[in-house]
C-alpha cells in the first residue's frame, strides 16, 4: 500500500494540528503544508525543530502560492522541504493512496 498524504493548514504557533499529525502519521508518509500551515516551514521560526527533526521519517512539501501570498518567498525554508504549486498538490494527492486533512 502506498503511503498517506497528510495536509496541514494551521499555523504551528496557534494550533496543535502539526503536533498531532507528527504523532500519528506513519513514518514513510508525506506531509503537505498549505494555507497558514506554511508558517511551519520557516527555518528561522521557533517551531522549526518540529519538522527539521523528522526529515528522515517524512517527505515534507509546502504550497508555493501560499508561501508567496504570506510574503515568505524570500524567507529561508527548512532544508529539505520541497515547494509545489497547485498542479504538484494534485499530483501528490494522486500519488498517495489516501489524503488526510488535519483540521
Amino acid at each position: 500500500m502506498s503511503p498517506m498524504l497528510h495536509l496541514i493548514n494551521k499555523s504551528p504557533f496557534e494550533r496543535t494540528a502539526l503536533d498531532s499529525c507528527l504523532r500519528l502519521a506513519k513514518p514513510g508518509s508525506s506531509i503537505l503544508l498549505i494555507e497558514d500551515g506554511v508558517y511551519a516551514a520557516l527555518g528561522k521560526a521557533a517551531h522549526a525543530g518540529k519538522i527539521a527533526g523528522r526529515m528522515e521519517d517524512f517527505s515534507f512539501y509546502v504550497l508555493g502560492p501560499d508561501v508567496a501570498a504570506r510574503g515568505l518567498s524570500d524567507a529561508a525554508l527548512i532544508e529539505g522541504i520541497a515547494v509545489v504549486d497547485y498542479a504538484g498538490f494534485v499530483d501528490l494527492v494522486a500519488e498517495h493512496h489516501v489524503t488526510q486533512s488535519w483540521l
Partner: protein
Amino acid sequence: MKFGILINEGPFTHQASDSAYRFAEAVLARGHEIYRVFFYHDGVYNSNRLSQPQTDDRNLVALWSKLGTEHGIDLVVCVGAALRRGVKDEVLAEGFRISGLGQLVEAGIQADRLVVFGD
C-alpha cells in the same frame, strides 16, 4: 482519476473554499475528473447566490457556479447543514443542488481520492 472534494467552510471567512477552488481547477488541468464537490458545515454558504463581494474581490459563489456549469461538475449542498443555516432553494446559485449526506459517503465510495478543505 476521479476526485471528490469536501468543503467545510463558507466563502471568505476561511481560505478553505479558495484553496479547494484552485485545487479543483488544477485537477481538471491535470486531466483528471471531479466526481463531486460536497459542501458541508458552513461550506453550504458557498452556494448563496446573494453573495456580493466588493468588485475588486473574487466572487467564490460565482466561481464555483461557473466551474460546475461549464465542466458538468456535481455541486452538492448538504440539506441538513443548509437548512439550519438558512440556505434554501430560493437563494441557491446556478449549478448547485441540495441533497443528503449520503451523497458525501457515495463520493467517498465512487471517487478514487477524497480531499477535505476546512478550518
